[in-house]
């Protein structure tokens, strides 16, 4: 159960990135899951570089996290500027394919650059268990994952609701033209959104690597896709929805693995997806936008 919530918060972090980008650009950023993978890798290199495993302390761990987030933020911006901006004017299918192309590029580029063998993420925070009573145990790593996720999500919400940039983001997601007419630099906001989303994905990558230290360039396809489903579950374009979607996803998955069969773990994501799209396409918290005739 705790596992479910932990994974759920990870999915939520990634889902937030998807949902924000979709809200602003109506684009399903397939490459987002790969940014998550990059996050884990950047964290890996950062940890190696500052020797976080030799002498683990929270300060270094935070440094690793921040380094990875910054690096991925930059990657996100690069991707947006080079690949997505030029196709913004084209059809939706073209944008979708570009996103898929970027995703493939990151994955295979990763294989090329990092080598296909999995690396082992150093233990920058040693693990030990905490007994909570009622037969529930939780590892300190899971606590950390939950805490960090929570902090990040709250921070994001604060940014979106209370800062000028955040409000500009909301405006752009409603209507590009209107936002532009009000003096908002739509381009900059879009770039900023990508950066934020990528940073969150990076954090997710590092957090997951904490608990599951084996990382490889193709590790991300599944969590990425599942996070996307989570975003849709919660209502794509809707920030709190992404969080809820992530949690539902994580818990559902764990339940299926526990009670049905581990091999169906991946399929549950898609079954959920299809059910939700058929029953309530707007997602749990989403709103239907009708087309004007």
């Amino acid at each position: 159960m705790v596992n479910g919530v932990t994974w759920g918060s990870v999915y939520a972090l990634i889902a937030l990135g998807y949902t924000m980008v979709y809200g602003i650009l109506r684009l399903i950023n397939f490459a987002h899951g790969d940014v998550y993978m990059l996050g884990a890798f950047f964290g890996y290199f950062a940890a190696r570089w500052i020797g976080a495993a030799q002498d683990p302390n929270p300060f270094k761990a935070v440094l690793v996290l921040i380094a990875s987030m910054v690096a991925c933020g930059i990657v996100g911006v690069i991707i947006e500027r080079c690949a997505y901006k030029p196709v913004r004017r084209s059809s939706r299918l073209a944008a979708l394919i570009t996103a898929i192309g970027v995703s493939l590029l990151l994955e295979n580029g990763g294989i090329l650059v990092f080598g296909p063998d999995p690396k082992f993420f150093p233990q920058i925070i040693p693990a030990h268990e905490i007994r909570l009573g009622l037969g529930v145990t939780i590892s300190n790593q899971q606590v950390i994952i939950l805490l960090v996720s929570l902090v990040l999500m709250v921070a994001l919400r604060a940014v979106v609701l209370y800062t000028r940039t955040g409000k500009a983001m909301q405006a752009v997601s409603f209507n590009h033209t209107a936002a532009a007419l009000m003096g908002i630099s739509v381009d900059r906001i879009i770039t900023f959104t990508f950066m934020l989303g990528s940073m969150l994905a990076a954090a997710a990558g590092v957090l997951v690597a904490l608990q599951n230290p084996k990382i490889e360039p193709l590790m991300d396809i599944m969590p990425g896709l599942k996070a996307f489903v989570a975003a849709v579950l919660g209502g794509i374009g809707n920030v709190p929805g992404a969080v809820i979607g992530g949690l539902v996803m994580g818990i559902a998955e764990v339940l299926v693995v526990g009670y049905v069969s581990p091999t169906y773990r991946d399929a549950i994501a898609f079954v959920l997806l299809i059910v939700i799209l058929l029953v309530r396409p707007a997602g749990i918290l989403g709103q239907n936008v009708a087309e004007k005739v």
Partner: protein
Amino acid sequence: MMRLVRAVLVVGVLLALNRLLPSFLNPYYMRVLMLCGISVILAVSLNLINGFTGQFSIGHAGFMAVGAYVSAVFSLHLGAGWMRSLAALGLPESMAQGATLLAALLIGGAAAAVAGYLVGLPSLRLRGDYLAIVTLGFGEIIRVLITNIDAVGAARGLPGIPGWANFFWVGLWVVVVVLVSMRLARSTHGRALFAIRDDEVAAEALGVDTTSYKVLAFVLGSFFAGIAGGLFAHYNAYLHPNSFTFLKSIEVIAMVVLGGTGSVTGAILAAIVLTILPEALRSAQELRMVIYSLMLIVLMITRPQGLLGSRELSWPRFLRRRAAAEGS
């Protein structure tokens, strides 16, 4: 009368090539040629859904998988029985074999068509992106299901499928799918599909039953994908769920997009190019996918409508263009 003559002619040419080609081409090139043919069928069939009707279907590999596995199961379990019965009726072995293969292919195609119907019908209410996700999800679910069904080999793969598919059969189905596509395009039904792509609301308001036509596109497209799958199964003689991943769907989409959504000739050209290219790049194995993905991105940025847009390559048009260029 003319039409019958033409049909016989085509069959004759295919049979002749079937006999002659292996003596000219070494097995490697034969394999590439066969794979090209299968890719063409896949691309043209997807073009019906994505290109003609403008629906974002990105799980095409799932339909291919259904066709592949169903036809393989048929051949493995019922194939021998069929051949015996047909031989008993006096048919020579090659014909009995061909007839059994045809039956297997049709059954696989029909299964895929049913799958297409089941996927299409409920999803058609959804807008573009959502439809894309559902089709993606379906493709993945199929793959996971297959990986879990022991009777078809699950993750070990399904070996021992009779390798009856040769150039003749692949070629024949290429001709069929291209013919159907092109004739459909230049008919009122094709126009209805294009109308749905251009403006669904207007099409509906003018009397086009958009739901039925979208389902039709799905069913037709998935039927031929199933045929392609069946051909692949009976050529490769071995099936593994990993041949039908999301990546495969993407490859087919890339072909349709490269060729220009809506253009049948474009899809054919692109299918051939995109089948040969990875083979040609085989030497640079690791770079292959990187180049491929870069190409996708660059293509979308520079020419999102594909090579041919929605126009068809045709001799008269080509000649007209030459004349116009020279005249002015």
